[in-house]
């Protein structure tokens, strides 16, 4: 079902408009800073507008099918094609990415972090945007891989150039970890290419993700599947990041500039979980069933571990970073159950975590800007110095700890719920244990977030900042934050906005898993 006319262009436009913007900016001399900013914002907003057009035109009745599909030749020699398409799984994440980038641009409008250079900063953000958008719509493994990797370098430079004290170490660590994962991932992609067979037993030799989803790994022997899955697991798991591959994350987050952290948290981590849902599980359901208990185990370890890690932090940003480990643990737990509830919750959790943690990083950035420190013990009384920011921090913290009525809850609760009855062929007792552990994780989440809130927002402002005038939320911050805040509340109140979109796709995935499980 290929799109025609304008619809056949929209996805490519959302993906490449930011890149066009970046190229245009490259032509603009550095001195014309206002023009640079306008072009950057313009191109990303244009992409967003097209994203909204997609959202409107999207056929929600057939959310399980790919829409706006374009299938053109690309690298014929390796049977790789330029295939983009969008279904209910991609749509929320694409929109998240499309929204996040303009917000980040606005946020850094007048204060590009040290050492300045707005032009380069914005170019990198736009390239990043192209990579992220592309990953969510690519329907060819090679195309996916390319987009998946495109984000690496811009992020590396964002952290490395505009980051904090330890930026070189952090950026390199981020890069090496991810690179390692993706190298193994591409091996698995190729293994899929060479080994996938159609139902008649003919070798397919295709990178087309649609086809591979359809054949669902039938024809690849189980032990091989498990190995291939291992490669995918490394590629996506590091990106998520799952325990024990998470150690790049706190460093990267802590050192990254504010918008870097925001994008990292809001979108980049989602590439990994998206990969699981889009590629690993549908392509290799049989292996997924074998792997799921282990993924679940790592996920719940991540939940508890991330929370305990948070409790040990003395730096606000690092704490939020560790909380990502815990939250992505919930997402992975949901995925590991291989059930409708779990995977839907995982997707919801991705979006929710994107907005909430993105928001928290925004605030952390603003706090840093005002206090020039994120040392929790030196902060305090934010509610008094900058009440609005304090309240927003409280709001975001509450959302982050999974308060019902806000978005975070809908990623957490159904994920825990799904572990009670894991998908076909999986050990029930194991997952029920995970369920209880995950539930305990929610308490710890409340613990570290409130503890953070108490020590940063409550109380009297500390002595050392007594003389300083701490500005409250400014205009740019309001513009940048409002969409997230509204989103957190809106999706929290009416989760069907997302569940309804994703459910069809997830149903397809679980159906194929169940079919495989039934065959075993």
């Amino acid at each position: 079902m290929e799109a025609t006319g304008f619809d056949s262009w929209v996805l490519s436009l959302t993906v490449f408009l930011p890149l066009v913007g970046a190229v245009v900016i490259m032509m603009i001399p550095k001195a014309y800073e206002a023009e640079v900013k306008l072009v950057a914002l313009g191109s990303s907003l244009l992409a967003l507008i097209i994203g909204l057009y997609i959202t409107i035109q999207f056929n929600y009745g057939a959310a399980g099918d790919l829409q706006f599909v374009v299938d053109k030749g690309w690298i014929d020699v390796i049977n790789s094609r330029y295939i983009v398409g969008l279904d209910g799984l991609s749509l929320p994440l694409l929109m998240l990415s499309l929204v996040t980038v303009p917000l980040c641009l606005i946020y850094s409008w007048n204060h590009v972090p040290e050492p300045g250079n707005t032009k380069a900063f914005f170019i990198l953000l736009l390239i990043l945007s192209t990579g992220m958008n592309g990953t969510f719509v690519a329907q060819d493994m090679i195309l996916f891989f390319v987009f998946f990797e495109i984000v690496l370098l811009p992020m590396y430079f964002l952290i490395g150039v505009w980051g904090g004290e330890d930026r070189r170490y952090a950026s390199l660590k981020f890069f090496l970890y991810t690179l390692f994962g993706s190298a193994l991932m591409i091996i698995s992609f190729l293994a899929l290419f060479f080994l996938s067979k159609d139902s008649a037993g003919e070798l397919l030799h295709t990178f087309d993700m649609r086809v591979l989803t359809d054949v669902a790994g039938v024809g690849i022997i189980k032990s091989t599947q498990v190995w291939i899955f291992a490669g995918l697991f490394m590629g996506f798991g590091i990106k998520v990041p799952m325990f024990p591959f998470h150690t790049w994350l706190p460093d990267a987050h802590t050192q990254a500039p504010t918008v870097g952290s925001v994008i990292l948290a809001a979108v980049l981590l989602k590439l990994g979980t998206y990969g699981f849902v889009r590629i690993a599980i549908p392509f290799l359901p049989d292996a997924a069933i074998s792997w799921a208990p282990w993924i679940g185990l790592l996920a719940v370890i991540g939940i508890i571990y991330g929370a305990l890690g948070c409790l040990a932090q003395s730096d606000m940003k690092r704490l939020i970073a560790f909380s990502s480990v815990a939250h992505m643990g919930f997402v992975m737990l949901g995925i590991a159950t291989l059930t409708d509830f779990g995977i839907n919750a995982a997707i919801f959790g991705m979006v929710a975590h994107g907005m909430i943690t993105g928001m928290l990083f925004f605030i952390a950035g603003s706090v840093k800007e005002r206090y020039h420190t994120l040392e929790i013990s030196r902060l305090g009384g934010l509610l008094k110095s900058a009440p609005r920011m304090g309240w927003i921090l409280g709001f975001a913290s509450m959302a982050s700890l999974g308060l019902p009525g806000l978005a975070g809850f809908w990623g957490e609760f159904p994920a825990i719920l799904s572990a009670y009855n894991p998908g076909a062929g999986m050990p029930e007792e194991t997952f029920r244990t995970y369920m209880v552990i995950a539930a305990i994780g929610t308490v710890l989440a409340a613990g570290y977030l409130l503890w953070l809130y108490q020590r940063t927002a409550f109380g009297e402002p500390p002595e050392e900042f007594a003389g300083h005038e701490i500005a409250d939320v400014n205009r740019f911050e309001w513009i940048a934050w409002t969409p997230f805040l509204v989103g957190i509340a809106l999706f929290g109140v009416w989760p069907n906005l997302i569940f309804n979109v994703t459910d069809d796709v997830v149903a397809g995935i679980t159906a194929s898993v169940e079919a495989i499980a039934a065959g075993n």
Partner: protein
Amino acid sequence: MLENAFIIPLIPAISFVVILFFGKRFIGAGRVHVVGITALGLVWVLSAVAAFQWTQRVEDPPPGAIVQLEAHVDEHGDQRADEHGDDHANDHAALSQDHSKDGHGGGHSSPLIRPVISTFSQWWSNGGVEFAVGTLVDGQTVLLLIVVASISLLVHIYSSEYVKGDRRYVHYYAFLSLFTAAMLFFVMAQNIIQLIVGWELVGVCSFVLIGHWWEEKPNTDAALKAFLTNRVGDIGLIVGMIVLWGTFRTFDIDAINTLISADPAAHHFALLVAACCLMAAVASKSGQFPLHTWLPDAMAGPTPVSALIHAATMVVAGVYMIARLYPVFYEGFSIGSSSINLMAFIGGFTALIGAALAFAQWDIKKVLAYSTVSQLGYMVMALGVGAWTAAIFHLFTHAFFKACLFLGAGSVSHAAHHTFDMRKMGGLKKDMPHTYRTFVISALALAGIFPFAGFWSKDEILLGSLVGQENSYPLMLIFGCAVALMTAAYMTRVIWYTFHGEFRGEGHPHESPKVMTVPLWILAGMAVVAGAFNLPSPVLEPFGLEGLAHRIQTYAEPSVYLSGLGLSHPDPSLAMALVGSALAISGILVTYLYYWRGMGPHGMTQRNRYAKNGYTFLENKYYLDHLYNDVVVETVKRPIANWANRFNQNVLDGAVNAAGETARDTGRWIYKWIDQGAIDGSVHAAARGADSSGEGLRAIQSGKVQNYGQLLFGSAAVLAIVFVIVV
């Protein structure tokens, strides 16, 4: 109103938004209470309308609202049979229904009225199934609506004076509104997800309001403690609800209850697990042992908040939840057939230690807080022994008199320089007549003195314990009686210290303004008459008003669910009432003698202060006092109250604090040794290994061409040897 009940929580929610976002700028910081009070007024009216409509529904059921029990037998299916059950289950339900009717005849004359359920079906969806958000309104709901709306309204009014000029007046009212909205949302939850949502939201409001004066660390500590303790309970809530979902594959409360009552024994084990888990949630939210320690600390919040949240409404959420999902607990804990069970025991034990702890407090609000703990324990115990109506009835009456007591305490503190330390009060009787009177009335109600509200509800609970369902609950009865005695005693003590004797504080106490005293009087009035809502028929028979007996039982009890369980109601017992009254009166009497007449065991410290305050004791009494002091106090009071207090402060509270600290320490340890040490360390070690092996390999590169040559020829030779041998 019953169909459109969602409007009721919506009003305070809107009020919240309006106050929070437009309060300061458009309304004026000092006038936001008008918005809140208006909203609550509306809510009250609508709640009253809803209540009235519900009574109409019960009295004059519209077609379709009644569950026809006879229909089970003939094949023309009723709705329930169509929807849920199989024939066997329905027969069973019908049989047990008959059984309960015939067996005890406790006036189950009313027809089984279906609750009014209205839903919006697209709240969220999963796996192709759509889950609704909606309202479930029945008698239990409207009862709570009335309670919440009334008390919240009064607290709103009261607060406009009490927190006047507060630095965060706007936020105060905003969150008061939000709390009300959340609580109302909670009570009319149609499914267990909504229960969770409401449950958490009230918790957050509680957190915010306890920490209202967050500049002081103790307040924020208390807020954190409250929230975190509740979160611990929430593990149970979440897991319990998930078990329910896993068992019945639905979130719908109506469906769950109906399914259980249709076939109570079908999922006993799952229900036991679910009930145990949910019990943990109840323990945290409703301050049951051992998770009650947050509640006294929560008194750090403004007093009206304590009255509303930590006495009348939020803390009863646990009780309400048990009542709402009563079939789960009834079946899970086998309440019908046992003579002791976890819920009853926890309730009873909590009631006991709460009462004991109330003795040892000097802070008037803490006394009331422990009293609340104790009374909540009472309610839980009532539910644990199968006395559903008694528990809800007690919830109803307790809300009024405890709110009154708290507001009274607030009034006292308002007068006495914002202190709650009873040692700095005394003799306020003459300065604050209204406060004094309302306080005494409410205290009498709490103590369970005829004919105040508490008497009736407490009596029903004791009766419920005595009779039980199939078996009696003797231990619960003993607990209940002991608590009745102790309650009366500690309330007398409070009144003594606060209103009698000499004023020990600074400045000149004065009566609070009308804005505060009027709510007090309204509540005191309710404390007198609330008992009338569920009078037993023998009381009314002499007046020919049997029709008004057991109104709460008639209207509020969801018999449509409970009938299937075979729940029975005990016959009223005069003997029990007399015993209960006697206990309460003797409690008052003993304490009265102790304080007013200086009789009884006085502690060393008290004795000295009384001496200072001009009390004269006979010389020989000194020895007697000494005797009491050493023998009685050291062996009786300490073991009971002080030991309990110490246990409470050191062990339970310590455990809560230690849990927090331990988590932090564990976190630090894991972070330091596992994360930074083992995991990151191994990564670093790999990096270092690569680096140093790179350095080591550089040695090959000696720069001398003959070394290179040696390597070249040498490796050629070695490779040759290896390949010649292997291949």
